[in-house]
């Protein structure tokens, strides 16, 4: 039975600007929100959108990510009609090659898509924090008979030059697309979420693969090509919370958003039927001690809080000892902060021990504390 829609999740990037956090794991596997990894968000979105077939394209430090994704069980993507496949680069009759770009990664897996024979392909990235039901976007795509639908979000004009920026007509059809323009003329930014009619995608990828001058990138090459060919490109406006967590500062900010703004990304109410699933850690319940002061924070199971914690996100199996002062911090799993240590404005890496009576202050910035 052919699938109506298959999701292809691009999860091969290193995320260089996340510094030491991605020394041994790929960016999509970076921890977020006390309990999750970034890739839990698009995978949970797929599950909640009732998309049952997902290919995850991995490359940088793929072993951990491939293991984490497994058969998709963590997100319920392992049922009878479901398929979760990790797709790292492979050796074939034609030889072996790394993925040279986002478009090339999909091109090298055309056989995987052909076998599934979907009508539509949803392209996602493993770099963003957001909750979204992709079915509404697919409905729009079908209603307009579009060849490609790009999810867009309004960004401040000052920041527009960091994104792929779209101009649209009054029917939301895309008239112009510029990747990271120096003088942006619109504030509609691409979220890196695309729904292609598969026939159109396949044809464009085949052309792109033959073009030696191409960077094999969706934003830089494939979308301009389709615009040039007068294909029907639709913008789908998303007005929820969406955050690129590509830097230490933006990763920290997205964690703080969970504390400060319940409307931004509500993980609790589930009124939107967009629950985020993740790995279960088999931890004991979190314990808050007699001397602890714990306010404005999120704390995961397995943590032990004996000191003072304010405005921070604490992961599982973290131990905060007596008389610590943890303010504006994200403490990743398995880390111990010894007694009397004060840390402000920092992300503290996982599975390390910070000695007692130390003072670590990010000052105006956010610092990453590692071994």
């Amino acid at each position, binding site marked *: 039975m052919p699938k109506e829609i298959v999701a292809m999740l691009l999860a091969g990037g290193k995320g260089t600007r996340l510094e030491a956090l991605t020394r041994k794991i790929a960016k999509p596997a970076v921890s977020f929100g*006390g309990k999750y990894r970034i890739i839990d968000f698009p995978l949970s979105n797929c599950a909640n959108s009732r998309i049952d077939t997902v290919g995850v394209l991995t490359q940088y430090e793929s072993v951990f990510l491939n293991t984490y994704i497994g058969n998709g069980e963590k997100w319920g993507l392992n049922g009878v009609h479901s398929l979760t496949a990790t797709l790292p680069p492979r050796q074939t009759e034609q030889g072996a090659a790394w993925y040279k770009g986002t478009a090339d990664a999909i091109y090298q897996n055309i056989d995987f898509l052909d076998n599934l024979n979907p009508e539509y392909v949803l392209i996602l990235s493993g770099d963003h924090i957001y909750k979204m039901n992709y079915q509404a976007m697919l409905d729009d795509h079908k209603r307009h008979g579009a060849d490609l639908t790009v999810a867009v979000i309004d960004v401040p004009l000052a920041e527009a030059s960091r994104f792929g920026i779209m101009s649209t007509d009054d029917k939301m059809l895309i008239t112009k697309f510029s990747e990271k323009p120096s003088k942006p003329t619109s504030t509609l930014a691409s979220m890196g979420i695309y729904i292609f009619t598969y026939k159109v995608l396949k044809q464009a990828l085949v052309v792109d693969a033959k073009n030696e001058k191409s960077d094999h990138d969706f934003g830089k090459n494939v979308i301009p090509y389709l615009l040039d060919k007068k294909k029907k490109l639709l913008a789908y406006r998303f007005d929820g919370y969406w955050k690129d967590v590509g830097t230490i500062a933006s990763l920290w900010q997205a964690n703080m958003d969970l*504390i400060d703004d319940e409307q931004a990304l509500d993980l609790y109410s589930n009124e939107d039927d967009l629950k985020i699933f993740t790995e279960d850690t088999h931890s004991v*319940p979190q314990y*808050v001690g*007699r001397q602890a*002061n714990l*306010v404005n924070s*999120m704390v995961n199971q397995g943590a032990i809080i004996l000191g003072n914690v304010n405005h921070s996100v604490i992961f599982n199996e973290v131990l905060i000892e007596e008389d610590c002062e943890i303010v504006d911090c994200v403490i990743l799993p398995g880390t111990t902060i010894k007694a009397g240590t004060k840390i402000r404005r920092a992300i503290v890496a996982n599975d390390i021990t910070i000695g007692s009576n130390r003072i670590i202050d990010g000052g105006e910035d956010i610092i990453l504390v590692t071994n």
Partner: protein
Amino acid sequence: MKRIMGLCNLHAPTTLNELTHSRPIASTSFLGRYAFIDFTLSNFSNSGIDEVGILVKNHPRSILKHLGSTNVWNTNTKLGYEAIMYNEKHAHSPSYNHDINNIIANDWIFYNAKPDVFVIAPAHILYPIDFREVIKAHEQSGAKLTIVYSHITNGKTEFVGGDELRFDALGHIRELTLNKGASDDINVSLETYVLTLPELAALIEKARQTSAFFTLRDIISSEISQGMVVNGYRHDGYVRHFGSLKHYRNHSLELLNYDLRRGLFLEDWPVYTVTHDTPPTKYGPNAQVKNSFVANGSRINGKVINSIISRNVVIEEGAIVKNSIVFTDTKIGKNVRVTDAIIDKYARVREVKDIAGTEIDPLYVKQGDRI
């Protein structure tokens, strides 16, 4: 290699009073995150026992809901299983609804499993144990049956209604009788038995010949009095018998003590339970939490002292929860005071501003009640 089968025996007459009116102890919430049966099943799992039967006495819905379709406790999810053993024919006749009749009614399970050795353990007595060591000791002893026991010094209040053991000079068990709380210094049975399939079959046959009302415990007691050689395996360390609501409260809250907790949650001996995919707990600006366990998914903006808070609990501003156990999906409204109480699932406490029991007689609020 010997084939070992675990039987989790839920036929014990023990109750937790109001708490177990509509559920067995096995699926009753413990420490805000677990069900009692998790500890038995995790002991099996960590001991390498992958084939498990659960002797269900009543309330099968509650047990099935907890076990779900997930393979939380199995090493091999194809070969391992937790088979529900339920005696439908005798479910509503108390005298006939006992473990022996349950095993007879479900003996087809053994035709496939062909176990060499059985480990039979209850869910209302908590202790961490490696059953491999018990089996080894059993085989070395040459006895027909091994009973796991502990020595306690508070038999007048603990293990009342459980079994007391007396030994002869050779260290064999000479007597198994009901503990009526006459003395403090006693050896108590952990209602955990190790024996071979032929020995179990022989005991069942003897029980049938003696009395249709005989339970496994009854026939063991009777056989011991007639000279059967029974070996004792002494368990030292954490062990608790749950025989009343008061025990439930005390044995829960005492685990707020770290050293005691380390006795139940051993290093490298994880306790597995079903994941509910709840987000980390959120502590608001007015949260004041001291010496408490808090499970994930809760939102706390009031005062919590010496208490256990389960999943998805909301504690609003100005509320005070003290020396209490609050079950999942419960809401404690603004300025409500809860002291020495046990609040069952889905309850809403809003109108009555002072809910108080005593340490000796904790107040119980029923599942789903509006107060």
